[in-house]
C-alpha cells in the first residue's frame, strides 16, 4: 500500500492483477503489450504469480507455487530510476543505512514471451528482493523506447522487514499469517500440479488455446487473443510440472508460445500505429 502510494505519486496507473494464471507480472498486458511501440506508459500493480514447478507442499519455508509480485513498469526508463527505486525502499520503511544494498548482475529472459533484458537482482543483506530489468525485446520485437521493469518479491520483502524466516509466518495483519491465508490452497495446488492435473486434458487445452489465439489474431481481436496465449503458457507450465514434457519437446512447446506472442506483439504495434499512437506526448512532464 505504501508502494501504491509511492508509485501513484510518481504518475503510475495503479493497474489490476491479471484475471488468469500467470507466471509473472510481465505476462500482464499492462506490461507485455504496453512496453511495445513508442507511446509512454507508467503502471504499478500486484500480481499473484503461479509457478507450478516451484511448489513444495508448503514444507519449504522459502518456496511456494503461488506468490505475490509488485510490478512497476516505467516507459521510457527515467535517468534517475535507480535513485527512485531506492527511495521506494525507504518509503516502505527500510532504513538503508542499516543494510547492505547491492545491484547484482542478472540477465533476464523469458523464452516463452520472446523477451529479454539486462539489469540486476537487488540484494538486501544478501537476499534478493527485487528484479530490476531494462527491457530490450518483448514478443521478439525490439523496444524503443526502453522500458524499465521493477519486480518486487513481496513475500521476500515482507520477510525481510518483519524478520521472519518462513513465508508462512509472515504477518498478513495483526491477526492472520500468510500461512493462515494461503497454506491450505498452496498444498492443494501442489497436489494438482504434481499429481492430479490430467495430462491429456492439459495437452488438449494447450492445443485449443493455441488454435483459439491464432483464430482471434486473424480476426484482429488482439487482447482476447493474448489471453489465450497466456492460458497456453500456463497449460504448458502445468504439463512441465507433471513431468510429462521431455527436454526436446520442451523447446518445441516454448517455440509455439513464443511464435504466438510475437504475432500478438506485431499486431498490437500495428493497431496502435493505425490509431496514430494516441498516448504520444502524454505524461512527458512528469
Amino acid at each position, binding site marked *: 500500500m505504501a508502494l501504491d502510494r509511492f508509485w501513484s505519486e510518481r504518475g503510475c496507473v495503479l493497474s489490476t492483477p491479471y484475471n488468469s494464471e500467470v507466471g509473472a507480472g510481465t505476462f500482464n498486458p499492462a506490461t507485455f503489450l504496453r512496453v511495445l511501440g513508442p507511446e509512454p506508459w507508467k503502471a504499478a500493480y500486484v500480481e499473484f504469480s503461479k509457478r507450478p514447478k516451484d511448489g513444495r507442499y508448503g*514444507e*519449504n*519455508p*522459502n*518456496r511456494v507455487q503461488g506468490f505475490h509480485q509488485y510490478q512497476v513498469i516505467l516507459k*521510457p*526508463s527515467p*535517468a534517475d530510476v*535507480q535513485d527512485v527505486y*531506492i527511495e521506494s525502499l525507504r518509503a516502505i520503511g527500510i532504513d*538503508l*543505512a*542499516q*543494510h*547492505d*544494498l*547491492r*545491484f*547484482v*548482475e542478472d*540477465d533476464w529472459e523469458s523464452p516463452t514471451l520472446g523477451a529479454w*533484458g*539486462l539489469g*540486476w537482482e537487488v540484494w*538486501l*543483506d*544478501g*537476499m534478493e528482493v527485487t528484479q530490476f530489468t*531494462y527491457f*530490450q525485446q518483448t514478443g521478439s520485437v525490439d523496444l*524503443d*523506447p*526502453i522500458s524499465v521493469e521493477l519486480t518486487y518479491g513481496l513475500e521476500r520483502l515482507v520477510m*525481510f522487514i518483519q524478520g521472519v*524466516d518462513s513465508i508462512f509466518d509472515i504477518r498478513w495483519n495483526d491477526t492472520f499469517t500468510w500461512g493462515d491465508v494461503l497454506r491450505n490452497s498452496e498444498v492443494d495446488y501442489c497436489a494438482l500440479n504434481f499429481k492430479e492435473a490430467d495430462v491429456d486434458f492439459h495437452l488438449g487445452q494447450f492445443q485449443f488455446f493455441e488454435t483459439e489465439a491464432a483464430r482471434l489474431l486473424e480476426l484482429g481481436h488482439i487482447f482476447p487473443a493474448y489471453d489465450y496465449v497466456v492460458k497456453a503458457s500456463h497449460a504448458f507450465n502445468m504439463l512441465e510440472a507433471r*513431468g510429462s514434457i*521431455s*527436454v*526436446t519437446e520442451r523447446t518445441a512447446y516454448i517455440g509455439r508460445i513464443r511464435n504466438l506472442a510475437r504475432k500478438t506483439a506485431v499486431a498490437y504495434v500495428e493497431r496502435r500505429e493505425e490509431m496514430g499512437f494516441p498516448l504520444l506526448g502524454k505524461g512527458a512532464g512528469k
Partner: protein
Amino acid sequence: MSDLLLEIGTEEIPAGYIEPALRAFAKNMKSHLKEARIAHAEIETYATPRRLTLLIHGLAARQEDLDREENGPPKRVAFDEEGNPTKAAIGFAKKNGVEVADLRTVETDKGEYLVASVHEAGRPTTAVLGEIVPAIVAALPFPKTQRWESSGFLFARPIRWIVALLDQTVVPITIADVTSGRESRGHRILSPGPVPIAGPDTYEDDLMAAHVVVSPPARRVLIEAAIDAVAQEREVRIIPDDALLEEVTYLVEYPHAILGSFDKRFLALPDRIVTTAMRSHQRYFAVQDETGTLQPHFVTIANGTGANEKSVRAGNERVLTARLADAAFYWDEDRATAPADRVAMLERIVWQKGMGSLLDKTERVRTIAEAISLAVAPSAKETVSRAAQIGKTDLTTEMIKDGKEFTKLQGYMGMEYALAAGEPEEVALAIYEQYMPRFSGDDLPSSVPGAILSLADRVDTMLAAVSLGNMPTGSQDPYALRRHARGILRLLGEGGVDLEVGRLIDLGVEVLGARIEDPAKVKTDTMEFMRGRLENMLGEKGYTYDIVNAVVSLNMEDPADVEERVLAIRDFRETDDFQNLVHGYKRVVNILKKAEGDAGVPDPALFRDDEERALHEAVEAARPHYESALAERNYRDAMERLITLRGPIDRFFDKVLVMDKDEAIRKNRIALLSGIAQLFGNLADLSKVVLEGEN
C-alpha cells in the same frame, strides 16, 4: 603538459565485465592518441562497479603539426596551353588549402605531376578528445550490451555521468544522453549526491572521502586484510579462492568484511554442498580451521563501513540458512531412495532424441565400460559395472534436478549418495570421476574404474552426436564434442589406459547398434574428428604441424605413442643430417609414386653400381637395430639408425640412375627404394616434413 581525468560513470556493471573493458579502454586510448599525434606519458586505470576511469599523465595541449605531400593531377591536365591553371589545378590547391603558385611539379615515370606541400596545424587536444572519446567508449568490449535512452547507444549498463577534466578544466564530451562535467558520484547510501572532483590529482582522495576506494588493487588489499582480521578473531582461515577474491573486488566500492555463522548441524552435509551454497550464489568465502576442517562460519564482503554490521550479518546468516535448509531437505529426501532403486527412474528421462532414455544410455555405457575393463583391467570389472549401473542416478535426485547452484555437483552428489547407501568406496569414486577431465587442463581420474567410465560415457556421447550430425561448427559446439574428444585422447594417452582409439570406437559403434544408421561412416567421421583434435592438442604443446601430421597420418591409435614419436623427430629436426635425409627420402617417395607394380625384394646379384650395393648394405645393417628400437618404442634410437642412411642415400642419388633401360635392373632398384620406404614408414611419413626453404 597536462593531466586528463576521464571517468565514465555507470549503473552497476557486472563484475566479470570490468577488467577486460578497463584494459581495452587504456589500450584503445593509447592507440587513438598516437594516431591523433597527441603525446602523453603514463596512463593509469581505476574502476569500481559504477565507473571506468583513465588518468592520462603528461598529455600535450595540441596535436603535433603534420607536414605531408599530396599528389595531384598530371601537369598537362593542370595547365592549359598558355600555362594558365585549369580547374583541376585550382581545385587541387583549394582542397589542400594552398595557393596555386605554391604547387610544385615532380617528374615520375608517368610524366610530370603536381604536388602540394601541406602543413596541417595541430588542433587543441580538447577538441580531438571530444571526437575520439565517444568512439573509444562505444567500442569497449562487453559480453552483453543494452540500450536505455533514445539514441540507442549500447553499453554494459546505462552511463549516467562523465567526469572529464584536463587539469582543472572540464573537457566537453557527449556520450549517449550524458554530457561531461566535474561531478562524480560517491557510495550510494553513505555519500549520496554529486561529488565534485577538483582535478586529476585529487581524484582518488575526493572519492575516498565519498566512501569509494577507486583503485582495484587497493580494494583487493583492503579486502584481504579485512578477511584476515575477522578470521583471526575466531582463529580460523578462509579457504583461499582467488577467483572469488577477484570477483568481490569488483562487486563493492567500499569493502567491509563480516564473519557470519550458521548452525553446526549443516556441517553434517557433504562439504561441497555447504561451500557451493556459500560461494556460487552468495559469494561468501568458506572458512576452515588449521587442519582444513570446514567450520560453521563464512566471510562476506559488504559494501560499506561496517556501522550496520549487526543487521547485515543477521540478514546474510538468514539467507544462507535458508539455502542450507533447502540443501539439507534435498539431502534427506534424496537419501531415502538408494541409487540402485533409482535406476528404473532413468527410463523416464529422455537423454537425446533418437538415442533413447537415460536408462538406455546407462545400459550402453555399462556394456562399453565392461568391455574396456575386460581388455585393460579385468580385475576392475565388477567395480566398473556397478559404477556404470548407478552412475547417472543422481540426475533423478532433487539436489541435482533443482536446476540451480547444486546442479553443477552432478557426479559429486552421485558419489555422496552412493557412499550413503553403503556402496563400495571405489564404486563411489568412479561415479565422481566419470566426468573428469571436466575442462581442458583439469585432472584426469585418479582411479582406473573412473577412467574407464569416463571413456565409455564420452565415446557413447560422441558417436551419438556424430550419428545425428551434431558436429561442431566454428565456435558452436553444443554437445561439447571437442571436449569429449580431448578427454578421450588424454585418458588413452597420459591417462595410461592401454586401448586403441579405433578399438574404443568400434566398441561404442557395436553397442549403439541399430541406433546408428551408417556405422562405417560414423566410425570414419569420428576417427577423422579425433585426428583433428589430436593434431590440435599436439600443436598447442608447441609441436609443429608438419611433424605432427607426419606421425598422425601414419597411425593415431595410441596418443601417447604419437607424442613420443613426434618428440623424437622434433629433436633431430634442426640437424643437417636430418634435413638431407628427409630430402633424400622425398626423392625416394617421388620415384616410387611413378613406378608401377609390385617391387618385391631386391636381389644383390642384380646391383651394378657400388653406391646401390652400399645403400643396400647400409639398409640391411640398420634394419635389425631399427626394428628392435621401434619395438621398444625408443624412437630416438630409431631416428639415429635412419640417420646412418643419409650418406648412402645421397651418394646413391648422385651416382645411380634408377630408371635404367634394363627392366630387371630398374625393378631391382625400385625394390631397394621401396624397402627403404617401408622401413621409414614404420616410424612416420617423413615426406610430410617441411624442409627449410620449402613452403
